[in-house]
């Protein structure tokens, strides 16, 4: 994408800036707008309510109105808060989750930075989010914030382990860490998806299927925990901690946390989609290929990628409005006593199968 822009504009600085800003304006902001509305609507429908339906047609403009409201709001900093860190924290959190988007392959033609270590990079850069959350929680000088931040950090670090283990087992199958290549390998039909044993043929493909499903479940659960979604939302448990680490934040800074949270939701969903469900590959082949219109293919890929990402975001919401919150010790039990052992066993078995 950067190269394309570079050719188009002829100035590498401008091209770099545009390429870097593109996902934010083309994707993250509209997505967050849509996702917040979706979340409300989904929660409303699941509870047999109507949800917001006054602003715009059936409430479609609700989040726009909310954003306008947030922009107007006074930016409050508590007197005893640590001003510098307090102001830095939302930026850091947002930067962390925004950086993850650099490595996400939106389509064959658009991927922010096609780094070979894409998957590894995403896992690593999300630790910036942990630091930002700790910073915000500490700087707020508020017990709830601090406890929320601590819980959040502990949870994110713990759940990184099963995620990494599942990613490892996928690396054994695919032989690469680049999300772009992983997506490329799962060529354009759904039986080539990694969840169905990858693009290879033969006996080992069939053998892989159950373990891939286990891997998918593990990584999905831990990704839920990493983005602090219910049932793992103890860092912002309303009933205990007001709003967790962002209790003291208001106005635009709060909006940044909010945006980061929703962007993160999509990031982990799309990673899951890219790892197990073919990434941007269409499940049924491409219309563009059949019709011979080559520029249609990347657009289709973008569509499929967004659709898959959105589907998993939707499942996250579905889970959120289904399950109650776990207790802290239960949370740790799930991670250390269940997910990690299963992930290890899964890793070993997948390794053995790939050796076959």
């Amino acid at each position, binding site marked *: 994408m950067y190269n394309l822009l570079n050719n188009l504009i002829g100035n*590498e*600085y401008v091209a*770099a800036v545009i390429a870097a800003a593109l996902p934010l304006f083309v994707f993250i902001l509209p997505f967050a707008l849509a996702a917040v509305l979706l979340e409300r609507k989904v929660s409303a429908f699941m509870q047999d309510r109507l949800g917001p339906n006054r602003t715009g047609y059936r409430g479609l403009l609700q989040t726009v109105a909310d954003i306008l409201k947030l922009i107007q709001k006074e930016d409050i900093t508590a007197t005893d808060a*640590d001003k510098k*860190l307090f102001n830095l924290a939302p930026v850091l959190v947002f930067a962390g989750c925004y950086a993850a988007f650099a490595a996400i392959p939106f389509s064959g033609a658009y991927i922010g930075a096609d*780094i*070979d*270590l894409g998957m*590894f*990079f995403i*896992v*690593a*850069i*999300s*630790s*910036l989010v*942990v*630091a930002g959350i*700790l*910073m915000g929680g*500490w700087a707020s000088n508020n017990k709830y914030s*601090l406890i929320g931040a*601590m819980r959040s*950090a*502990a949870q994110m*670090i713990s759940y*990184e382990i099963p995620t990494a283990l599942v990613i490892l087992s996928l690396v054994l199958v695919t032989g690469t*860490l*680049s999300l772009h290549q992983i997506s490329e390998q799962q060529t354009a039909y759904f039986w080539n998806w990694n969840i169905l044993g990858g693009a290879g043929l033969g006996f080992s493909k069939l053998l892989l299927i159950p373990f891939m499903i286990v891997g998918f479940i593990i990584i999905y659960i831990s990704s839920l925990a990493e983005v602090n979604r219910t049932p793992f939302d103890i860092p912002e448990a309303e009933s205990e901690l007001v709003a967790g680490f962002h209790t003291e934040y208001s106005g635009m800074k709060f909006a940044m946390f909010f945006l980061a949270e929703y962007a993160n939701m999509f990031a982990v969903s799309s990673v899951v989609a890219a790892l197990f469900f073919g990434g941007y590959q269409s499940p049924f082949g491409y219309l563009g290929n059949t019709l011979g219109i080559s520029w249609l293919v990347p657009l289709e890929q973008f569509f499929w990628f967004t659709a898959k990402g959105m589907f998993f975001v939707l499942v996250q919401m579905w889970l959120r409005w289904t399950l109650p919150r776990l207790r802290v010790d239960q949370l740790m039990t799930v991670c250390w006593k269940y997910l990690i052992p299963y992930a290890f066993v899964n890793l070993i078995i997948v390794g053995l199968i790939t050796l076959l």
Partner: protein
Amino acid sequence: MNIYDIVFYLFAAITLASAFVVVTARNIIYSAFSLLFTFFGIAGLYVLLGADFIAVVQLMVYVGGILVLILFGVMLTNKITSVQIKTGTLQVIPAILGTALMAGVLIKIFTGTNWHSQMAQYPTKTTAYALGHILLTDYVLIFELLGILLLIALIGAATIARKEEKAS
């Protein structure tokens, strides 16, 4: 000056400035958080050197692991922020001597080494493959020994943590 130079100086500046804050900050929390930027800057420098794997590992291990651990330690320790960290000047002469010696050695190395100072090419292939290969062929013994060392440390930590439980 092309874009890589700018990025290099940016990262270098981040690293140096935040490292300076780490050692001079009175508040230990500030030190801990500036360490984040130091680590981050160093990761950026690694990327510019074409060592992508090391850069990501730097982020993952130092920012994601060690820094968070430090922060946890600092935050969980009661009243640690109010403790005055001593930053007076003691032992002036040995300090000057030590610093001069260290600086001399560093300058010697810096001038004496034949640096490959050409710009890193856009890495066509990730270094992960080469690193993995080396680790499991040439350095396999060291690799395994390190693994055992870490395991021992882990078990040790677990035993120390568990002893108290029995006593109570």
